[in-house]
C-alpha cells in the first residue's frame, strides 16, 4: 500500500486513474534497472510533462528510495518541472528595448488570445507563456521567441500569426 503523508491536491495527476496507470507502467518497466530514479523521472517528464510533489512521493515509495532523493534529483536538473508546461513555449523578451518597445502590450494581446497569463499554460496543454532576458536581437524589438525561433517586430496585431506557426508545425 502506498503511503501518503501530504494531502494530494484535487487537480494532481495522481487523482486521474489513467495517468496513474501510465505512471505505474513506467515504474514497472524500469524498477529493476540500476539507477532507475533518473530513468523513471525522465520518462514521467516526457510523458506527463511535469512531476508534482505527490508524484515524487509516489515514485519514491514505489522505487523504495527516500523521497528526499527523488526530490533532490528533480530539483537539481533543469529539465524536470514540477508545474505543467505546454508542448510549445512562447517567451516574451523583457530586455530594456523590448520592454519599452511594446512587450507589455504584446502580453496583453497574448492573454486575450490564449486566455492565460505569463507563467501559465493553456488548458489544452499546448502553449506555455514565459518571459526571458534580452535575447540579443534588440534592434528587432519587441522580440518573441517561439520554441527556438526568434520573431522580431511583433506588433500585437501580428501575434496571432506567431501562434499559427506553432500550430502548423504541430500538425505535421
Amino acid at each position, binding site marked *: 500500500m502506498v503511503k501518503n503523508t501530504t494531502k494530494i491536491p484535487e487537480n494532481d495527476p495522481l487523482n486521474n486513474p489513467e495517468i496513474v496507470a501510465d505512471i505505474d507502467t513506467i515504474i514497472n518497466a524500469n524498477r529493476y534497472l*540500476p*539507477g*532507475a*530514479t*533518473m*530513468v523513471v*523521472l*525522465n520518462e514521467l*517528464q516526457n510523458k506527463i510533462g511535469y512531476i508534482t510533489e505527490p508524484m515524487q512521493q509516489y515514485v519514491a515509495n514505489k522505487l523504495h*528510495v527516500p523521497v528526499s*532523493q527523488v526530490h*533532490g*534529483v528533480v530539483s*537539481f*536538473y*533543469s*529539465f*524536470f518541472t514540477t508545474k505543467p508546461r505546454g508542448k510549445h513555449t512562447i517567451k516574451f523578451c523583457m530586455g*530594456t*528595448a523590448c520592454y*519599452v*518597445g*511594446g512587450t507589455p502590450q504584446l502580453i496583453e494581446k497574448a492573454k486575450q488570445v490564449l486566455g492565460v497569463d505569463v507563467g501559465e499554460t493553456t488548458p489544452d496543454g499546448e502553449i506555455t507563456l514565459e518571459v526571458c532576458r534580452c535575447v540579443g536581437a*534588440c*534592434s528587432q*524589438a519587441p522580440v518573441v521567441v517561439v*520554441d*527556438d*525561433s526568434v520573431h522580431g517586430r511583433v506588433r500585437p496585431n501580428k501575434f496571432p500569426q506567431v501562434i499559427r506557426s506553432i500550430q502548423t508545425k504541430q500538425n*505535421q
Partner: protein
Amino acid sequence: MKFYRSHVLVCIDPECRSKGAYEVLDALQDELVANGLIDEVQVLETSRIGGCDQGPEIMVYPEGVHYANLTPDDMAFIVEEHFLKGRIAKKFLLPITSVVDEELSAPTPKEIRIVLRNCGKIDPQNIEDYIAEDGYMALAKVLTEMTPEDVIDEVMKSGLRGRGGAGFPTAKKWSFARASAGTPKYLICNADEGDPGAFMNRRVLEGDPHAVIEGMAIAAYAIGCSQGYIYCRAEYPIAVSTLRLGIQQAREMGLLGQNILGTDFSFDLEVRMGAGAFVCGEETALMASIEGKRGEPRPRPPFPAVSGLWGKPTNINNVETYANVPQIILKGADWYASMGTEKSKGTKTFALAGDVKHTGLIEVPLGITLREIIFDVGGGIKDNKGFKAVQTGGPMGGCLPSEYLDLSVDYEALTAAGSMMGSGGMVVMDDETCMVDIARFFMEFTQDESCGKCTPCRVGTRRILDILDRICAGKGEDGDIELLEQLSQEIRTNSLCGLGQGAPNPVISTLKHFRHEYEAHIYEKKCPAKVCKALIRYEILPEACTGCTVCARNCPVGAITGERRGVHVIDSDICVRCGICQQVCNFNAVVVR
C-alpha cells in the same frame, strides 16, 4: 529487397526543420509520386548534411550532389531536372569547398573526414548502410585476430587522445581500467555535449551512430567490460532515438549482446538520458547521474578506472574518441599517426561559429593553424570586417588574439597559449566585439551552471560576474582588475571540478590579451568596441541628417526630436541604445560614439 537508382537524404536537423525541412520533404515526395518516380528514388531523413546555415538542404546519391536553400516550391524543378532529365539543378547547388580525402594523398588538405566520414552519406537508421562502408569489420578483426592487449597497443601507437576536453591518451586510460581489479567493469560514452554552440557529437550520433557503437564494443573487448552506457543529453532526442534503434539493429545482427559474432565476448549497451545540467558532462558527475543521483562531481582520486559507476572500474570516453577507434583498427595505427603533430595525432571536429563566412562543422587534422581554419576553411571574417579574437575550449576556454593566428591547433600549444582544446567549440569574433562583454557572457553561463557544491565556484563566479556587470555598466573602479585576477586564481586553485577550475579562464585570457579594453571601460568609461550600452551614445550627424523623420517615428521611446526637413537630435537620457534609429536611417546619419 527493393533497389533504388537514387537516394535523397533530407536534413531534418532542428535548424533545417525550423526553416521548413519537413515541408520540403513532403513536397519532394509529392513530386516524386506525381512523376512516377517514387519506386526509383528513395527519400531518407538524416541529420546535418553540412551547410548548417543553408537549410533546408538535401543530398542526392549516387552523384553526391548537395542542394541547399530549398523551399517546397523548388521541388518540382529539382525533380524534373535531376531525376527526370538527369541534369544537375545548378541554381540550388552548394559549392563544395572542403576537400574530402580519406587517404591523405592530396597535398596539405585542409579537411580530412574520419569521424564525420559517413555523416550525410549513409542512412543512420539502417545498419546495412554502415556495414556497406566497412562497418563492424574492425570489430570482427578485433574479435578474431587480436588479443585485448593487441588492441590497446594499436590504439596506443595511433596516439589517439581523448576528444572530450582534457586529451588524456585513450589507450592509457583503457589499460588502467583493464588492469583494475573488480568486476563487473563498465564502459561509458560521454554524449552530454553541453558547451553552448557545440554540436560535433550530435552530428556523429545522429548521422553515424554505429561508428560509436562499434568503437565502444572494441573498447569493451580491450578492457573486459560487458555492459556499457551512452549518456546523452535530453536536448538531443533525435540522437537518443537513433542510438536506440542502432543498438536494437546491432543486437538483431549479433553485433551486440551474448557471444558476439559467435565468440565468447559479450557486451550490451543502454542509452541513458541527462536532464539539462551542464556539469553532468564532468565524468564523476555523469556517473552520479547514471546512478540516479544529483549530478554533483566528487573528488578524484579514486579515478573512474579504479572506482567508477556503482563503485566498479569504469572507462569513460567522449563520442568522438570512440568514433575514431574502428578506423584506427581497420587502417592501422601508422595511418592515423601520420596525421597531426608529434603529440596530437589524427583529426578533430570543430563547430565553427561566430563572425566567419562559413559557419558549421569541420574536421581538420591536428596541427593545422588557427589561420587556416578561420581563413581557408571558414572563408575569413564576415562582412569584410577585421579579425579580433578566437575563442576555443567552450565556456572554460580562452580567447586568443591575432598574434596567435599561426598557432598550431594541438593540445599542448592551445594550453600553453592560455586556452584549451576542449570538446571543439570555436567562436570567431570580429573587431566589433567587446572582450569584456564576452568574458561576462561566459561567466554568466558558468555561474548559472555551477552545481553549488563548493564555495569558491558557487560564490566566486557570482562575484566575478557582479564585477564584470559593473564594469560593463560604466561603474568599474580602480582595483577591479586586480580583484578579478585574485578571484580568478582562487577559484581556479580551490574548486573541486573542471567547471570551477576552468570558469575563470575567459576572464584570465581576456585580461591577458585585451587588458586595455578593461582599462578603457574602467578609467575612461569607454567601450572601444562600442558594445556596452551604458558606455556608448547614439548621435545624429547634423551634416548628414535630411530631416526625413524616419528615426523619430521608429524610436521606441521617443528620444528623437526635430522638425521635418530639419536636423534631428537624440536625447541621450531617454535613449535606450536599441540601435533602431541607426538601422532605419537611409543616410548613415546616426553614429555611435
